[in-house]
């Protein structure tokens, strides 16, 4: 049993993250009571122990994922779609071999399950169950109980296509490999016998037998395995653009045709072994490339599940307020749905009750929320920011604007980055020049020594390698994407790596980016008649519906249950106003509260703390001092960027004093506070007008417009849903403010990967130039016979692909 013991500091036995010193959460595993970091881990660990599966802890080689603490999504709705007892689910959180055992054992123990199999490579669970004895929601719930998220696998998505391609390519590769090895067995005796045609060594009949056997074995390789090259060449020629497949197809065709002709004539060399080896090695490189791309596509699928899958449909409205949870795709026009604050609207609709603020930034780019009330139309995908509202659906979820956006993201994932497009174009020119050269070589040899014309031309076609361009560049990009993914970085747009490498300025937001975003109430200063607990309760009441970190801190500070606030209006960047127990209050920035309380704020906050003011018509009531801890890796990340020559800036909406304090600690020279979203966007534009390339790292509801305006943008983890959709790159696995979360370090890693990718691509191009400039003249002079040429070409392409794959490990 591998002991994953730690030092005296407590770590969660389940997920390995640090646990609070006197943690109230424990689980009884085996004979010991183990500390846990959160109720989610405790529940999962207890479930595992109760099911008698605590061997999992003995045999695992990696910590489990910390379970999602949010409310379980509506699992029951999946029962409607899967009635026939057969299904495939995608599973998240598989970390090591023991997870496989744990999942299969646990599910097999559920009543009604007939067969369960977990495919580790694709992270999919194949299930068969008896519909009358068991429902899929029960299975999903059991999985969640032990700490794994699962949802139905939709095969119509992009990832499935890559999977099918990979399978077909694997078959072709196997056939080519088999053909190569078998043909080599018959080619070696012929080589060993030499060209002497001495009947005692090997007579003509035997040579012919070897030749025919090799031909029969080469047929499947040329017709089946090499089919993609011929098809690619045909498509290229039809479009009028010679691509990489054209010389390959020509080379294979010419070599094969020439060899068959030699066989039939009874004289001349046959090249079947070169052909099969060439096909095998070239397919091998393609297989490696496809694998790298497939791994990168898998995680993007999980991001797309952020679109709301379920909706709360009101059964009979306005008669009763009871709601059912249904699949968003099942909504029909005329249904009424209830949308809670912070949730995305599941389908296009019209508000029938509720005055609320709706954020349309992801659809229109507006940075301010729009106030909407009964009668206003809300597009699907907009986020309801302030209050719960009831909507009447006007179109189905499939046609909603969010669905359109998801489809756009899918299509963006298929777009090639600029450097790959450049590589394709360069390869095209290379191939065109090569074809001309081949004809010239053939013509020249025909004139000088006709017997050598054919082999020389074939050698030129085969030995040339545009692989650094067409093959290695996509592989490098896919390998880099895969490595980034393993560090929790998801590049949504393709240009992220190359733009980051070129970036001259890096702009950071403060709250939630450089800091944990988890504000804690440090002190409350009462300024008026209301005492401290009462002020805190009023503040908590006003902030009841908001997802902002300030709100969360205030809600947590109030110990007694907060009263209800009515008529609460939340204004972005300023504060919230509402009526609590009959009196009107304002909570927020000093200027905003002064509008109701009158006069100047009595006492300014101390250096480095953020102040939130509370006031009523009677005057100023309280000042809440909130502090936010810097992320532990913030300093290292800023230093890393500065060392690589980029200028780091800090633009924040918080007060100047706290911004300056943070900037001093991190060594940032240019730091501005009090920036509204429009101000940040102006600053970025000003830099861009001077010719700078700006990278923006931001979070929070306010940053959506700036993230779109920067040349490349990053958003850490589970920040506001909006910022994620606007950023070019998402730093997953961070941002919930928990102690020890890896927040910003993936960003420095991304910059490193960007630099490494640029280096590798340049290395490959340099090698390609050296190789082609030396090998092609040799082949043109007739010094290379086709098998050497094939070896050279395949070796070169394998070299560049392997060099590109180096990026996966770093």
């Amino acid at each position, binding site marked *: 049993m591998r002991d994953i013991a730690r030092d005296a500091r407590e770590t969660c036995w389940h997920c390995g993250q640090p646990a609070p010193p006197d943690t109230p959460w424990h689980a009884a595993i085996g004979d010991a009571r183990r500390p846990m970091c959160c109720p989610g881990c405790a529940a999962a660990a207890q479930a595992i122990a109760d099911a008698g599966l605590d061997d999992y802890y003995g045999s695992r080689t990696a910590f489990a994922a910390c379970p999602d603490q949010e409310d379980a999504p509506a699992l029951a709705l999946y029962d409607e779609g899967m009635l026939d007892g057969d299904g495939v689910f995608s599973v998240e959180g598989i970390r090591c*071999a023991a997870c496989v*055992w744990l999942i299969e054992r646990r599910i097999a123990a559920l009543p009604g399950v007939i067969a369960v199999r977990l495919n580790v*490579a694709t992270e999919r669970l194949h299930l068969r169950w008896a519909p009358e004895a068991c429902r899929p929601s029960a299975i999903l719930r059991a999985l969640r109980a032990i700490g794994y998220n699962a949802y139905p696998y939709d095969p119509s998505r992009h990832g499935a296509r890559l999977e099918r391609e990979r*399978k077909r390519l694997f078959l072709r590769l*196997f*056939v080519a490999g*088999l053909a190569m090895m078998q043909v080599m067995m018959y080619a070696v005796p012929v080589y060993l016998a030499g060209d002497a045609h001495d009947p005692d060594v090997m007579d003509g009949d*035997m040579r012919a037998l070897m030749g025919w*056997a090799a031909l029969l*074995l080469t047929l499947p390789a040329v017709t089946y395995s090499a089919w993609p090259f011929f098809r690619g060449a045909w498509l290229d020629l039809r479009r009028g653009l010679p691509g990489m497949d054209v010389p390959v197809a020509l080379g294979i065709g010419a070599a094969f045709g020439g060899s068959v002709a030699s066989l039939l004539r009874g004289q001349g060399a046959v090249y079947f072994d070169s052909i099969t080896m060439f096909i095998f090695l070239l397919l091998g490189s393609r297989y490696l490339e496809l694998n790298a791309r497939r791994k990168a596509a898998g995680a993007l699928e999980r991001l797309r599940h952020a679109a709301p899958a379920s909706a709360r449909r009101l059964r009979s409205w306005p008669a009763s307020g009871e709601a059912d949870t249904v699949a968003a795709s099942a909504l029909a026009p005329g249904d009424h749905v209830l949308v809670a604050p912070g949730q995305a609207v599941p389908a296009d609709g019209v508000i029938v009750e509720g005055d609320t603020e709706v954020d349309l930034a992801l659809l229109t780019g507006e940075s301010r929320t729009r106030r909407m009330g009964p009668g206003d139309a809300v597009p699907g995908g907009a986020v309801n920011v302030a209050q719960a509202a009831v909507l009447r659906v006007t179109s189905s979820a499939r046609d909603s604007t969010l669905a359109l956006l998801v489809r756009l993201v899918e299509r963006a994932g298929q777009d090639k980055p600029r450097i790959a497009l450049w590589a394709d174009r360069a390869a095209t020119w290379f191939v065109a020049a090569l074809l001309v050269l081949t004809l010239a070589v053939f013509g020249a040899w025909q004139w000088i020594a006709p017997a050598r014309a054919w082999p020389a031309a074939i050698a030129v076609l085969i030995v040339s390698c545009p692989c650094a361009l067409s093959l290695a560049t996509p592989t490098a990009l896919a390998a880099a994407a895969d490595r980034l993914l393993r560090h929790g970085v998801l590049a949504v747009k393709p240009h992220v790596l190359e733009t980051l490498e070129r970036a001259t300025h890096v702009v950071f937001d403060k709250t939630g980016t450089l800091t944990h975003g988890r504000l804690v109430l440090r002190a409350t200063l009462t300024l008026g008649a209301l005492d401290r607990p009462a002020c805190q309760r009023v503040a908590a009441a006003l902030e009841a519906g908001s997802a902002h970190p300030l709100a969360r801190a205030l809600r947590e500070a109030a110990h007694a249950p907060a009263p209800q606030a009515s008529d609460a209006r939340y204004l972005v960047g300023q504060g919230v106003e509402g009526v609590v127990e009959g009196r009107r209050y304002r909570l927020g920035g000093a200027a905003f509260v002064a509008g109701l309380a009158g006069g100047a704020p009595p006492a300014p906050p101390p250096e480095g703390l953020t102040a939130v003011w509370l006031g009523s018509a009677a005057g100023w009531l309280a000042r809440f001092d909130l502090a936010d801890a810097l992320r532990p890796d913030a300093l290292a990340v800023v230093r890393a960027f500065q060392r690589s020559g980029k200028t780091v800036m800090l633009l924040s909406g918080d007060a100047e004093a706290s911004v300056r304090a943070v900037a001093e600690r991190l060594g940032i020279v240019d730091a501005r506070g009090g920036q509204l979203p429009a101000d940040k966007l102006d600053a970025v534009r000003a830099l861009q007008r001077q010719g700078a390339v700006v990278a923006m790292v931001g979070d929070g509801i306010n940053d959506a417009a700036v993230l779109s305006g920067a040349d490349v943008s990053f958003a850490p983890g589970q920040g506001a849903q909006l910022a994620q959709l606007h950023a070019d790159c998402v730093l997953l696995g961070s941002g919930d403010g928990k102690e020890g979360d890896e927040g910003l370090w993936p960003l420095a890693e991304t910059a490193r990967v960007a630099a490494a990718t640029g280096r590798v691509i340049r290395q490959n191009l340099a090698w390609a130039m050296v190789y082609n400039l030396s090998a092609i003249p040799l082949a043109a002079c007739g010094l290379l016979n086709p098998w050497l040429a094939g070896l050279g070409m395949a070796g070169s392409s394998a070299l560049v692909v392997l060099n590109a794959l180096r990026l996966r490990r770093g």
Partner: protein
Amino acid sequence: MEALYLLIPLSLILVAFAIWIFFGAAESGQFDDLDGPALRVLQDDDR
């Protein structure tokens, strides 16, 4: 040496047979998950 006139065609038939078996195995899903069986070996289900 004349034996080769029999053996070589025979080996071609064997290769064809091998390809046929491989395709059958691939279609039935044997090669879909290359990582799972390696991990399963470590499981201790004897109890």
